[in-house]
């Protein structure tokens, strides 16, 4: 559906993209990943013509992007920025419906759509619709940022490192949200990130970029199992076995509890390594892990079983 054809870009004689070609199919969650300065955002912005390639062309449904009416193209493309970038002077529902407002949809319908979207992401419209952006937490703001991109029911949504400024827990929740929304709407999403974990978690297809050169395009397993270049291998090395503490705890290893049980020892953990080093030094069969957000009851035996199972899966 979308085709980047020998695209190149130079800024004041410095090449930032060199001869990049790939295709994106309808319904893909296509992730552009690479270290900063690799040109991934530049590629993304070529779709809605925030940047223009110096060479090559981008095609959308067989037609060159540059031949589309610019405003129509942008009105029908969702866009999520790094910071939520909500208009600070508009309330949440007006923010969500800004593209609809430009399309001339009447106010009642706009607000109806905004509230429907708020409900879809578990934000009560009664509470949130009329709030101002600065009354929301960072995670809530970005949640609104995402549904704002969905408001006009676009066929393509561009996301430019939308979660890089959020803490891991919220990032995780929002990643789930994106996966869920994409499953429901079958919207094609181009997603830029520098975080390979995020790329692996979200991408149906991943393109790896470095210094403006496309290293590899493929499904997540392909990238991990058959890295095309030394860089890709390095980049993803070990990351498939990278444990996120909250990930593991939420996935059934721990049992979430609300009240502190005083008879069990309490361990404060920030990352998975903290948990492992505690187990190395202590023999308690059961203890409580306290993270920034929650407390979990952990049985040491479960932990070891879990690790063995994961290792077996990998091999």
């Amino acid at each position, binding site marked *: 559906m979308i085709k980047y054809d020998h695209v190149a870009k130079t800024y004041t004689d410095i090449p930032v993209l060199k001869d990049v070609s790939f295709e994106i199919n309808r319904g893909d969650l296509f992730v552009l990943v690479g270290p900063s300065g690799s040109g991934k955002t530049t590629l993304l912005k070529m779709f809605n013509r925030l940047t223009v390639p110096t060479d090559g062309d981008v095609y959308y449904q067989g037609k060159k992007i540059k031949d589309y009416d610019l*405003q129509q*193209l*942008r*009105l029908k493309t969702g866009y999520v920025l790094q910071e939520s970038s909500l*208009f*600070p*002077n508009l309330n949440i529902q007006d923010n969500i419906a800004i593209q609809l*407002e*430009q399309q001339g949809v009447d106010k009642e319908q706009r607000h109806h759509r905004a509230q429907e979207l708020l409900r879809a992401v578990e934000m009560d419209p009664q509470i949130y619709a009329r709030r101002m952006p600065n009354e929301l937490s960072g995670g809530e703001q970005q949640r609104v940022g995402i549904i704002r991109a969905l408001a006009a029911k676009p066929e393509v949504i561009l996301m430019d490192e939308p979660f890089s400024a959020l803490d891991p827990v919220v990032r995780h929740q929002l990643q789930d949200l994106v996966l869920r929304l994409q499953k429901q709407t079958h919207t094609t999403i181009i997603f830029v990130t520098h975080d390979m974990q995020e790329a692996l978690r979200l991408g149906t297809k991943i393109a790896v970029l470095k210094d403006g050169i496309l290293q590899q395009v493929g499904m997540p397993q392909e990238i991990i199992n058959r890295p095309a270049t030394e860089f890709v291998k390095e980049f993803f090395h070990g990351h498939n076995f990278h444990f996120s503490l909250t990930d593991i705890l939420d996935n059934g290893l721990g049992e979430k509890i609300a009240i502190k049980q005083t008879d069990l020892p309490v361990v404060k953990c920030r990352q998975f390594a903290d948990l492992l080093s505690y187990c190395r030094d202590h023999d308690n069969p059961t203890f409580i892990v306290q993270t920034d957000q929650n407390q979990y009851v952990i049985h040491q035996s479960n932990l070891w079983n879990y690790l063995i199972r994961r290792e077996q899966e990998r091999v």
Partner: protein
Amino acid sequence: MYNSILHTLQSQQGAIIKATEQHISISLLSLLIAMLIAIPLAILLKDHHKIAEACLQVAGIIQTIPSLAILGLLIPIVGIGTVPAVIALVLYAIMPMFQNTYAGLTEIAPNLEEAATAFGLTKWKKLQRLELPLAMPMILSGIRISLVMIIGTATLAALIGGGGLGTFILTGIQSNNNTYVIIGAILSAILAFFFSWLLKFISTNTHRMRIGLVAILILICGFGGYKGYQAIRPAPTKVVIAGKMGSEPDILIHMYKDLIQQEDPRAEVTLKPNFGGTTFLFKALQSNQIDIYPEFTGTVNQQIIKTNQKTGSDPQKTYRLAKRELEQRYQMRYLKPMQYQNGYALVVSSQFAKEHHLTKMSQLASYNNEITAGFDPDFYQLHDGYPGLKGPYGYDFKNVKTMEPTIRYKAIANNRVNVVDGYTTDPQIPQYHLKMLKDDRHFFPPYQGAPLMKESFAKHNPKVVKALNKLSGKVTTEEMQQMNYDVTVKKESAAKVAHRYLVQHHLLHK
């Protein structure tokens, strides 16, 4: 001081209200025009940084030109009155509003701009939903800065006949009347504070802002409608009468107004008291900015037609010379003068007069060595002044100082000097119990006041001429002195004093 302020506020109520209204309308009109220029300009130039910077430079340079100089430069181009005042104020007010609007629009976070662009918002939508609302606090503060500045600077409008509260300040300075200065200054400060507060109040929430905008629109439409109505209404006779600085011209032009309106009740008479000096007024008359102003025969000969010799001492001859020259050289009609003579006089303190039994100027030469005189710089230099006196009276005073007209009376009242020059109708003479010496050798030229107007105006308005001629031969020196005293010292309004005189002398049937 407090009492004299209260008294002036009471007696000058009408004039104060009018000046305040004028001040507000000049200020708000200037602000509105400047807003209509500065804000759209900043919006247009927000994406053209180089041009915007250039505009900022230009606006900054205009800002550094003293306002007085701008007013001066504008006179030959647009004349005098409200128009140049408004132009000057607009020029001043543009800079802060342009700068703030531009800064407000360009300092919007780039990610918000990018979001708006990426959503496909049109320029107008972007402006309406993002840029203007975010820049609004900056814009409003720019408007506030401009408004406060305009209200302050608008006091200078009085210098070129634009009216407003500056008239009071200027009159106060000219006539050494601090009460007027204080009233003018305080009122303009209050106006600045009030409007600054009002803007702040309106701008604190969007609801108030909307109400405020609607109110302003209604006001503008109302004002425009009123002006429009005035424009299409059959034009009544319009007469603009101006006067020089001081109480006496002020009283005279009020008399003119009363008399004209009695003769032609539909006439619209506009008074511009304290309008300026001789040359300024004469030019204003020539360029049709004003229609009539009272001028003195002696002044005509000395300063307008410039005979360059000592004026004769016969009042009739002096008037005829002035009338003839004005008619021939400038096509002006000089109506018949009033009786009183507002000429130079030598004035001594009552103590000094008593000591030496002084009544006549000829007696003064005997005391040359005891005299310290304080003279107006003009008097010190003119043929009609001190240099001319030396011959016929044999004066050679021990010590002669030149000082500003307003200061010399203070000086003699405090015994710093014992002889000063003055005008025969000066109210300070009775106020400080001074003794005016008789010009027994008829040296001083006769200065008689009479209305001066263009010949063409006189032809078109015979009723006005007829009305003003009623004053011919009226008003004695003592009566004028008394009226000046009533206005300057007793703080009665010139309108009231003039009216009272006319009624008492059966010139006005009211």
